[in-house]
């Protein structure tokens, strides 16, 4: 199934929770989905026999410029039908939250922890949301564009990067 057809089917099923279809400016045509509905969309895409998106290849957090909304990008693949779709959700910078897919795709467990660790995005329904790469008591979310590191970490000076 092409990405366009998948988008049309999702629009019929979920109505205005499917926000737009992006084909320009990306090598992987993307469906923008409402952050609260994402888990339902992912479940539908996995369970429906016409889609069978059983493999979450990648999950990435993203901060475009340090001012606008944060986003999370899901790259899905079907090992049975060999087709692709990319989902994207936007969530506010001050209170970022997205429905978790960690129970649906077990691989998302660690990837969501990573996005939480580096971007501070809360994945609602995640079984064990905590930092994964940085230290547990690290302050701030390092991959945010407006991140300013603290001066000290446990008494050690953090070197400034120019």
């Amino acid at each position, binding site marked *: 199934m092409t990405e366009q057809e998948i988008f049309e089917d999702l629009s019929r099923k979920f109505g205005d929770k499917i926000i737009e279809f992006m084909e320009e400016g*990306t090598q992987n045509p993307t469906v923008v989905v409402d952050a609260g509905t994402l888990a339902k969309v992912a479940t539908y895409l996995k369970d429906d026999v016409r889609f069978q998106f059983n493999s979450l290849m990648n999950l990435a957090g993203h901060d475009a410029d340090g001012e606008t909304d944060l986003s999370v990008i899901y790259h899905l693949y079907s090992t049975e039908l060999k087709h692709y779709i990319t989902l994207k959700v936007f969530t506010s910078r001050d209170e970022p939250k997205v429905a978790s897919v960690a129970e649906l*795709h077990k691989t998302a467990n660690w990837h969501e922890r990573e996005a939480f660790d580096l971007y501070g995005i809360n994945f609602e329904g995640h079984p064990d949301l905590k930092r994964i*790469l940085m230290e547990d008591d690290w302050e701030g979310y390092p991959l945010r564009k407006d991140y300013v590191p603290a001066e000290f970490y446990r008494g050690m000076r953090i070197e400034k990067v120019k």
Partner: protein
Amino acid sequence: MGRLHAEEMVLNMGPQHPSTHGVLRLKLTTDGEIVSHIEPVIGYLHRSFEKHAENLEYQMITPFTGRCDYIAAMGSEHGYAMAVEKMMGIELPERVEYLRVIFAELQRIASHLVAVGTFGLDVGAITPFIYCFRERELILDLFEMASGARLLYNYIWIGGLAHDVPPGFVEKTYEFLDAFDEHVAEYNQILTGNKIFVERAADIGVMTPEVAINYGVTGPSLRASGVNIDIRRTEPYSIYDRFDFDVPLGQGLQGTIGDSWDRYYVRVLEMGESAKIIRQALDQLPVEGDVKSAIPRRIRPPKGEIYFRSENPRGELGYYIVSNGKNVPVRLKMRSPAFSNLSVINEIGQGWMISDVIAILGSLDIVLGEIDR
């Protein structure tokens, strides 16, 4: 006599432990010798690769990618170069494509040799490890001839190669291949059918196809479960569609499909397939061609994003790159195969003895450099 009092104990395996292949800590919840829960704790090797990448020009990132997966640096560089080239629409000279495939496959053999050798070492077989490293040295010699380095190459650049291979490289690679088949037979003699090794690996840590796909396991570990997915075959990149090679799958020859022994043996078979590809690539290698002719003066991918995946020795290596048209990426995420491959260990390692967890971990072939990035 009172009843024996048994309670669960949390045991830390690592961070400093020779069989954890780097700096990994496993928090084992144990009931006697039986492990009831495994929680991997990672991040000890975190070097902020993605943060660095957002402050570096595209061509400056290439050496960083090699430092993530330091056992297969050529593979990391190749994947990164292809992702940026696809964004920019760069056509490569034929000679570059062939040389890249030769290096990527040599790297696959070298990486699998480490995997196979250290797996043997983990379960107590020391000799095969020395044998494997002997052959790996020969491959590193070839890499040294071409790039001047033995571990971290910075050789595959965006749009080409750092420089052409020196005279004598092709002949020396043929020499290596001619001797290699015999070496694989040696590994089979001393390790593959070794009774002790089979006892330690067969039927241990069985991974079903559903579990593997759900946890995002890729590469040889996935194929050992009988899932026929090799990105070189399912969505051929570079020039992999021109070569004739098989995709070995786990068959459960010594036990169950998807056990630790299968994960080992798929790697052994894959080395033979890689040797086949290298031989074909050497036969077809164009003599003419400037390996630097397609390297762009300014690397500024057009505004947009890409997720590009390639088959690294450990599995699917993906790069998610967002560009705003400038010479520095806005976002670069490396989807590292071992990161997902390691996350499955609690699922397949539960209920086994502590010593079996070591075998299962060895069979997954992890590199902490790319897990922590």
